[in-house]
């Protein structure tokens, strides 16, 4: 029997497992509607072809690829944060780590779908598996994403086993019989013996180390898909670490937003306190400084080199993409730095604002990495039309982007019906004086 000392923990951390609130239904319904609009857009796209998108001969990667990179970045950030927090046994990690793990797995499930939306000939997709060329960064990416997905699932599951055992055995709350049955299967017979604890801790430690390494490798591979080409703006030796840092930046931002959302919805104020926001906020601050440094370094060297195509690209960024460039690379970095850097500004609300700005800025950063480069081809193409030169996403692309965000919310909410979003076992293990 898995028993815990603090019975209130079970009660407080499982609000949606026991019953479903109106808020839950409302939010879930909203996400489903957004998702349905996206599906309608997708049907239009499949029916009429990619002509309904803004993508043309030059800009063949639009916001679908931007979203792919963005979601994959969130995922790797989640993996890095949860892995590091676990390995370094941070005392404050308990209420935060499950969110990071969920961000990892859910983003990783959503991201690759944007690749499918982007492919004109989906029937050729199996060729990637049937005839892989391992020299191709695309093949590395396919292998890496599958490997990462499996690893992150295992890590998430391992961290859930103890909670499943607690929910299986608890009498503190009333759980439906079918859920009890499910917990019995998922808990793998865990009863918290010393040997079981040792085995699961060892497995979790190993998987935490693995997912840190894999996250770095996988996101570097994604960066190299761009970096190994000779395209202006992409051909950069620092793209690997730059992408990794940017991913952690966006993931940390999302973590703060998710913490605040679920803290409010599930009334977790007692467990997720200002201290947690400040700690994760300081992580965001450090990453923002590194990310700003990488961004500056990347653009400075390109601008100073004055290679013809780089110069055309940078001119374009400062003219056609001026506001987006300023928001992504100045405001998106400086505002989080100022808000979190000055102790007076460090309130929960301000930290969440900083996180939202960081997250939106990072999305724009992805946009100005992908699109302007494709609008600046090496070979001047004769006879190309205006919409071939200037990409602008259509409502279908926006609808599918919103659907991606909605499905993220749907998954989070569904998980909250089966598993506690704040780990009960971690909370029990952590020093109560620290948390409560």
């Amino acid at each position: 029997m898995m028993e815990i000392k603090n019975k209130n923990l079970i009660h407080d951390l499982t609000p949606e497992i026991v019953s479903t609130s109106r808020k839950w239904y409302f939010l879930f319904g909203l996400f489903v509607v957004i998702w349905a609009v996206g599906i309608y857009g997708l049907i239009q796209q499949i029916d009429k072809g990619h002509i309904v998108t803004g993508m043309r001969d030059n800009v063949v990667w639009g916001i679908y690829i931007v979203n792919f990179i963005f979601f994959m970045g969130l995922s790797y950030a989640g993996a890095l944060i949860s892995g590091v927090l676990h390995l370094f046994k941070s005392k404050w990690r308990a209420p935060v780590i499950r969110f990071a793990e969920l961000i990892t797995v859910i983003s990783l499930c959503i991201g690759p779908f944007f690749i499918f939306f982007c492919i004109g000939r989906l029937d050729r997709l199996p060729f990637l598996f049937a005839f892989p060329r391992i020299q191709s960064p695309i093949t590395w990416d396919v292998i890496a994403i599958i490997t990462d997905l499996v690893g992150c699932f295992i890590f998430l599951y391992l961290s859930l086993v103890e909670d499943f055992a607690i929910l299986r055995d608890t009498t503190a709350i009333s759980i439906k019989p079918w859920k009890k049955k499910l917990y019995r299967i998922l808990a793998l017979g865990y009863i918290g013996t010393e040997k079981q604890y040792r085995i699961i801790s060892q497995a979790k430690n190993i998987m935490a180390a693995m997912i840190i390494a894999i996250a770095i490798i996988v996101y570097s591979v994604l960066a190299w898909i761009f970096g190994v080409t000779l395209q202006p703006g992409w051909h950069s030796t620092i793209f690997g670490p730059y992408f990794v840092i940017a991913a952690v930046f966006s993931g940390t931002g999302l973590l703060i937003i998710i913490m605040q959302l679920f803290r409010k919805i599930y009334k977790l104020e007692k467990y997720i306190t200002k201290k947690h926001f400040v700690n994760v906020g300081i992580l965001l601050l450090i990453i923002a400084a590194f990310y700003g440094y990488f961004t500056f370094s990347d653009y400075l060297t390109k601008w100073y080199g004055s290679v013809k195509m780089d110069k055309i690209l940078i001119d374009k960024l400062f003219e056609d993409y001026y506001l987006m460039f300023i928001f992504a690379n100045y405001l998106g970095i400086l505002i989080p730095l100022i808000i979190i850097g000055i102790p007076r500004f460090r309130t929960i609300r301000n930290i969440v604002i900083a996180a939202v700005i960081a997250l939106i800025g990072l999305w724009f950063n992805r946009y100005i990495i992908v699109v302007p480069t494709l609008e600046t081809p090496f070979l001047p193409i004769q006879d190309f039309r205006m919409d071939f030169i200037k990409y602008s996403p259509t409502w279908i692309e926006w609808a599918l982007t919103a659907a991606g965000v909605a499905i993220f919310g749907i998954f989070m909410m569904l998980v909250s019906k089966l598993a506690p979003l704040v780990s009960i076992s971690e909370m029990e293990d952590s020093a109560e004086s620290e948390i409560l």
Partner: protein
Amino acid sequence: MKLYRFLVSIILTLACLSSLSAQDVEEPEILSPYMEFKYLKNTEEQRILEAKIFLAGELGLIPIEGLPVSFYTNIEEPELLGEVFTNEKGIARYIISDDMILHVDEDNNWWFYAEFEGNEQYEMTMEEISLMDVNLNMSLEETEDGKMIYLEAYTVQNGEKVPVSDEDIYIFVPRMFSLLSVAEGYFIDGEAEVEFPDDVPGDEEGNLTVIGRFNDHWQFANVEKRIETKWGVPASHEVAESHRALWTQIAPRWMIVTLTIMLIGVWGHYLFAIISMIRIKRVGKKSK
């Protein structure tokens, strides 16, 4: 509150900057397009007038779609042949009907004129062309000397055939994006002989199209004849056995070894984690 004031001031500053730059950009401007005007007499003896309207941009030529182009003939009393709208490639194409009798000037030339009148967005643009009609014949023959192309060209002036002399003619083959010039000949007394090269790739069976053409000629503009033949070198799509490299069929050994070691390392640890789960279950059963 101070923070919000700070954020609001930044956003307002940006909005002002963007509105300033927007003012610069949004001033109404009438653009000056260019026109390219061509005449082609193709292998079916169709006479085609083609006007292309475009803007010259930093990245190349930007075609303009949907502009009306009027085609005229007869320089003395301009006569409207027809009006055609430019397509998405900026091209307006007019085919002169076979039974149309065109007016010739005192030098035996036809005169054509294409005009876009202009609108609130684009300035007026026009081009004219003057040319002499020429009749071109072509035949192919394989002789001991090689693959020979025989060409004949003459004009009709005052009802009499006048052979073309001292003019160049070019031999082309179509390739993926344009026509490739492979040989050239010279007319003497209305006849030209050109040897076709032996090393021009065709399709898998060696088929290719041979084109004899006056190409952008000062007097005849574009006139061509096309013949399908098997004079090409059959293209082979067999992949040659290649060495190990990034760009060949088989990857370098170091890459295969590195990837294999990494994958075995990672998936090995996964296996360990899965075995740990099985052990947890076994220990649980034993403890019960």
